């Protein structure tokens, strides 16, 4: 290659200078990180961050446009430096993908070097800034003068520029709060992940009802000596319903009857009951070595002990199914008298003004009987900008796919 005979810093600059520059930037980043003993970078909030970002964009674009023939500027916006910065980001992400990222812990060497909070560390910030500058310069040359054939390039690169910069600069304005609410009560305080101090919300949430639906319960064999649950021969999660069969070594079980919601009566036998209090009961026939017996087993609830069938050293038990869905019926109300009634469910968040409300969790010990619902409320004013970037990348992607196929046809014919 020609590169080998070139002297260092002889123009035009190429990969060697890019590698050196990127390595220097990474070293500087880690030095900064050490000097600030691993504290995370505090970004300014709206409107300051928006102003800084706009100034940065204007600066990069105007440098690119005014000095498009300067060889250093050309190198700064070129693919070799771009590739090195992509590798630097990949390297930092690799650290973030291997070392557990934990917020809060400090003092250790890992936290001083920033490797346990790599995505808010100085080396990452510095690399991203350089990356945005590099990407912005390359964009400036394709944006002006505009040509339709550059559209794919513009959509990809501008989309990524917008998504990345707005996601990072906007992270200071992201608010995520957890709001615990008990049934029949309202709450207008939320907690962040980082601190125990409640924060006042501009609205309150009233919880009418929390409800949880489970998958059917499962049949399992429990060994109290080893504290292990044994699965049946077919390696199937056995959903209990009338007619379910299961077998373990020397043991066959058939479910003769199944009542999803029942309570024990005076005679000791289960009777169908209301779904809010009843628990699943199953009548099973157990056949082991030529003996047969029948028994009622149940999953139990906070009020009722579970019913198991003893089989020598083992127990045949029924465990509640995993949650299938859970939802909170709420009324959201702000100080101005606006209110909304809504059902919050996982994957079905609800918008209220600038906020989005999510069903997050519940009292897991109480399970189906939980009277507590955890709602997460999120405000992210930069979301539309990030999504604009996403949609531009997707549009660029469609063009890329299309052109890729077209060129392939050209190539093979």
């Amino acid at each position, binding site marked *: 290659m020609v590169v080998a005979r070139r002297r260092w810093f002889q123009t035009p600059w190429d990969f060697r200078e890019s590698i050196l520059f990127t390595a220097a930037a990474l070293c500087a980043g880690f030095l900064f990180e050490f000097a600030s003993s691993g504290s995370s970078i505090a970004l300014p909030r709206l409107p300051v961050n928006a102003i800084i970002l706009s100034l940065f964009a204007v600066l990069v674009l105007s440098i690119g446009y005014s000095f498009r023939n300067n060889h250093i500027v050309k190198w700064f916006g070129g*693919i070799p430096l771009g*590739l090195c910065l992509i590798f630097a980001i990949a390297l930092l992400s690799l650290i973030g993908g291997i070392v557990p990222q934990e917020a809060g812990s400090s003092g250790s060497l890992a936290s001083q070097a920033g490797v346990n909070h790599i995505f808010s560390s100085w080396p990452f910030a510095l690399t991203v800034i350089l990356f945005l500058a590099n990407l912005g310069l390359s964009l400036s040359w394709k944006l002006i003068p505009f040509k339709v054939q550059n559209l794919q390039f513009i959509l990809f690169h501008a989309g990524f520029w917008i998504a990345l910069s707005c996601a990072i600069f906007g992270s200071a304005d992201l608010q995520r709060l957890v709001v615990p609410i008990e049934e029949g009560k309202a709450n207008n305080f939320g907690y962040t992940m980082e601190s125990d101090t409640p924060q006042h919300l501009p609205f309150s949430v009233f919880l009418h009802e929390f409800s949880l639906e489970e998958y059917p319960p499962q049949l399992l064999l429990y060994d109290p000596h080893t504290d292990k649950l044994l699965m049946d021969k077919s390696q199937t*999660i056995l959903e209990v319903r009338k007619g379910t069969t299961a077998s373990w070594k020397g043991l066959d079980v058939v479910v003769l009857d199944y009542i999803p919601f029942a309570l024990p009566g005076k005679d000791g036998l289960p009777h169908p009951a209301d779904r809010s209090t009843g628990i699943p009961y199953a009548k099973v026939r157990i056949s082991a070595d030529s003996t047969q017996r029948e028994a009622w087993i149940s999953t139990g609830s906070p009020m009722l002990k579970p019913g198991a069938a003893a089989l020598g050293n083992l127990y045949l038990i029924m465990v509640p199914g995993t949650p299938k869905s859970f939802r909170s019926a709420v009324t959201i109300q702000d100080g101005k008298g606006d209110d909304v009634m809504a059902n919050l469910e*996982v994957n079905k968040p609800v918008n209220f003004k600038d906020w989005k409300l999510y069903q997050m969790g519940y009292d897991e010990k109480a399970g189906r009987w939980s009277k507590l619902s955890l709602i*997460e409320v999120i405000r992210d004013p930069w979301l539309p900008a990030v999504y604009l970037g996403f949609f531009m990348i997707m549009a660029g*992607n469609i063009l890329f796919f299309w052109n890729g196929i077209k060129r392939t046809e050209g190539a*093979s014919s």
Partner: protein
Amino acid sequence: MITFTTAAILAIACWSLGAIVSIFARRTPALKLPAFLLAFGGSVVMIAFIAFYWSILDRPPLRTLGETRLWYAALIPLVGFLVEYRWKIDWLKYYCMALASFFLVINLLHPEVFDKTLMPALQSPWFIPHVVVYLVGYVLLAASSVTALHNVSLQLRSKANVTGESVSHYLALLGFVFLSFGLIFGALWAKEAWGHYWTWDPKETWAFLSWLAYLGYLHAYRYNIERSKLQWYLALSFVVLLVCWFGVNYLPSAQNSVHTYTQS
């Protein structure tokens, strides 16, 4: 799961026989069609099994690693057939069928726990598009790496191979397109399900890394770095994909991941 064993053995038999008949078909062109039908039959068996499995599970079989391997096994040979049809390159399909059989053998050795449940976060209209787009992306990139590896071996024996290099390139390009869609669909879904589109969860981080690896490739290609060197790059990129795909669960960082696949 009696039927999985049957379906897997039948599919592997189809691919093996198809491969053997294809080798004979090089001399006897009349055998070409039967060879293709046999090999294709292997994937048809897997697709039928997936459809059947989907119907008895009452949910798409995309939840566990084992379930995703069923899809790879069905889809990877199809890429091999397409490449043969499109670029008249006939050796890729052998690798693809071998890889598919390998996935089925893993599943035969580690039988799945048959579980119908789907946790609430996965019950989303995004679930299928996100996972399927990723599956297709990985399948294309797997084929691209296999092609690149073959190209490397031809290079080492100093044989010229221009078509092979353009095939690995186009497969990588298409794979990158799917990877980008998968990444963005994932982000849009995460916003609906977990409240934020990006949280640097280990799985997300590794997905981003794999995407960066191919982004780097595309730019190096654009900068006219020698094609032959890039074959090494493409062959090795698959290591990153594999970690992202199976390996993440075993990394120290996975202890606080929200979406490693269920290990059952």
